[in-house]
């Protein structure tokens, strides 16, 4: 993309200089190449974007490249007795991560939990987005969207902690049921398990699923639904054959927005899982901060990134049929 923009800018600059030469205004012929380059529009353009470009490189690319580089280095103890990341580039840590039973189990759990969360969030969110888009009067839509986003004005950690308060062993549900005499012992099926994790994360990521689906549903031409019903389809068949395929781009966006961050979620497994259900981010935290193995931690992080990228790409490719239709 950069290359193309640069080419266009250079072409524009050339065109301009030939014009001005024809007009007899430009008398300077030849001269040092760097001096001429500094006069071009391409240079001006690059100079204009360079602060932001530099900022992007420092803030986004540098940490990522560091993690990738660390993943192929090794943890050693320096002469002063401190743990450092040392030079020889090896695949040692990557092999450890990809063959280790612990890492495989925890990565599999992270993927399973975030897939369940994605499924739950998108399935629960779709009817809400559908209701707001199709049944709420136009002047009330923003009020409904506002109502949906209000619970997310508090901190993420506070919300997760409150789910622990609700679902925990001494939590609201258990103590409420105990005090009314419905149960005689606290329920253990609702706390410190994958179900509680999924419920908390499905709550935390709800607006990220509702909003993209709502946007896509809003764009659907209502006359298509009318046409579907005029041609003799039932309401359910119209929904399945018109509304649902047209809303797939939004569903894909929602799936990716929910799936990608939940794989790396750190707070929820720590608080809701009670430390018994660590996910990949907890593993990275243990290696990076507690054990001070930054190379191994980076290797886990890079592996997790690759797996998430692969799963997301496969998901998008499986659904590319619907995405093509949307861009036309």
């Amino acid at each position: 993309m950069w290359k193309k923009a640069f080419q266009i800018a250079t072409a524009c600059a050339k065109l301009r200089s030939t014009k001005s030469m024809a007009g007899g205004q430009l008398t300077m012929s030849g001269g040092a190449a760097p001096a001429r380059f500094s006069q071009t529009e391409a240079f001006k353009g690059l100079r204009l974007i360079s602060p932001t470009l530099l900022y992007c490189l420092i803030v986004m690319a540098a940490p990522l490249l560091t993690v990738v580089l660390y993943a192929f280095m090794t943890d050693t103890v320096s002469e002063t007795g401190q743990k450092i990341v040392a030079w020889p580039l090896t695949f040692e840590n990557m092999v450890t991560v990809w063959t280790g039973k612990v890492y495989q189990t925890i990565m599999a759990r992270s993927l399973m939990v975030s897939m369940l969360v994605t499924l739950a969030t998108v399935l629960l969110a779709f009817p809400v987005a559908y209701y707001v888009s199709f049944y709420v009067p136009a002047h009330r839509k923003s009020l409904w969207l506002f109502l949906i986003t209000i619970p997310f004005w508090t901190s993420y950690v506070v919300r997760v902690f409150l789910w622990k308060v609700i679902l925990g062993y001494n939590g609201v549900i258990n103590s409420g049921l105990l005090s009314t005499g419905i149960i005689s012992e606290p329920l253990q099926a609702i706390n410190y398990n994958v179900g509680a994790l999924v419920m908390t994360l499905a709550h935390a990521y709800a607006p990220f699923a509702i909003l993209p689906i709502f946007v896509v549903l809003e764009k659907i031409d209502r006359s298509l639904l009318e046409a579907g019903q005029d041609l003799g389809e039932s309401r359910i068949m119209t929904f399945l054959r018109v509304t649902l395929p047209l809303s797939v781009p939004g569903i894909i966006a929602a799936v990716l927005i929910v799936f990608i961050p939940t794989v790396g979620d750190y707070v929820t497994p720590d608080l809701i899982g009670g430390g018994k259900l660590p996910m990949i981010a907890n593993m990275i935290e243990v290696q990076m901060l507690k054990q001070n193995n930054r190379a191994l931690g980076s290797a886990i992080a890079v592996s997790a990134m690759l797996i998430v990228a692969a799963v997301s790409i496969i998901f998008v490719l499986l659904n590319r049929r619907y995405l093509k239709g949307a861009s036309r």
Partner: protein
Amino acid sequence: MKSSGLKYYTIAYLIFLYAPIILLPVFAFNDNKIIAFPLKCGMTKPFGAPFGHR
């Protein structure tokens, strides 16, 4: 109207979204060591804590 089912579902979903937020002020008035029902009402104590009253 066919939308009534969807409407009730959406309201139930909103209750799910608001559940933790509703509990936040409820437990602000709780003066117990553990966060659980029944509430031990000691309204002044938790609100005094940020200002150094213990």
